[in-house]
């Protein structure tokens, strides 16, 4: 009789342990899967456009000494001014939007 009770108790204990383990293994299946959020640094940034000279172009030329960069900017302004003056002499849509040789635009 004692042996029978011991086997029954062990069986109940085994069933209880199995149930707990099963519940633990299946708990996360019903929860929604979270997608990792993109960090701010990974999000695309819309930069504000610069006037006359695009700031992104300036930032993207880290190897150029600042003196050379300033000369490029001044050359760009001079070329744009020349193009604008050329437009005033012969105002057409083509001359207004004529091609520029400025390296800051290309």
């Amino acid at each position, binding site marked *: 009789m004692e042996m029978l009770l011991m086997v029954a108790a062990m069986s109940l204990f085994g069933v209880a342990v199995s149930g707990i383990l099963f519940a633990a293994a299946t708990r996360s299946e019903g929860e929604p899967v979270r997608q990792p959020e993109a960090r701010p640094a990974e999000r695309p940034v819309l930069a504000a*456009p610069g*006037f*006359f*000279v*695009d*700031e992104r172009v*300036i*930032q993207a030329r880290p190897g150029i000494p*600042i003196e050379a*960069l*300033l000369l490029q*900017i*001044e050359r760009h*302004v001079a070329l*744009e*001014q020349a*193009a*604008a*003056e050329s*437009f*005033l002499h012969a105002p057409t849509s083509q001359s*207004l*939007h004529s091609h*520029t040789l400025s390296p800051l*635009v290309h």
Partner: protein
Amino acid sequence: MPNGQPDLLTGVGDVDAAEVKALARRVTLAPGDVLFNLGDAADSLYIVERGRVALSLPMQVRGRVEDVQIEERMPGQALGWSALIPPHRFTLKATAPLTTDVLALARAALLEHFAARPALGYAVALNVAAIVGQRLQVFQAMWLREIQRVVQMSRG
């Protein structure tokens, strides 16, 4: 002045032009000297007599404020017309890249002279309008070219 009268005195007779110049004070600038700074009170109009004057605006470049030259004035050309137009503040910085002589015409003296000679004042006012208008048209065209690039960039 290499060829005739300065642009400020275009169409003005020699006698009248000489009288206007007689009101001026000659200023000699050494290389690197600043004639006026952005935001300074504009009390005088200038005519470049010899040398050159560079006009610049401040610009943020790599986190530093740098003066970027946007125009240059040669002998015979006027600068500093803010002296005649309210709020009488310079909107550019003017420096001499080399030894330069300018004639400085004080606003008070000019206006007093023109009050006594309205025809001369009218002729000079037209010349100032031509200088201002030309700059406006040039910068309007430059602005439109820039806007066109922004439109093209936004399309990808």
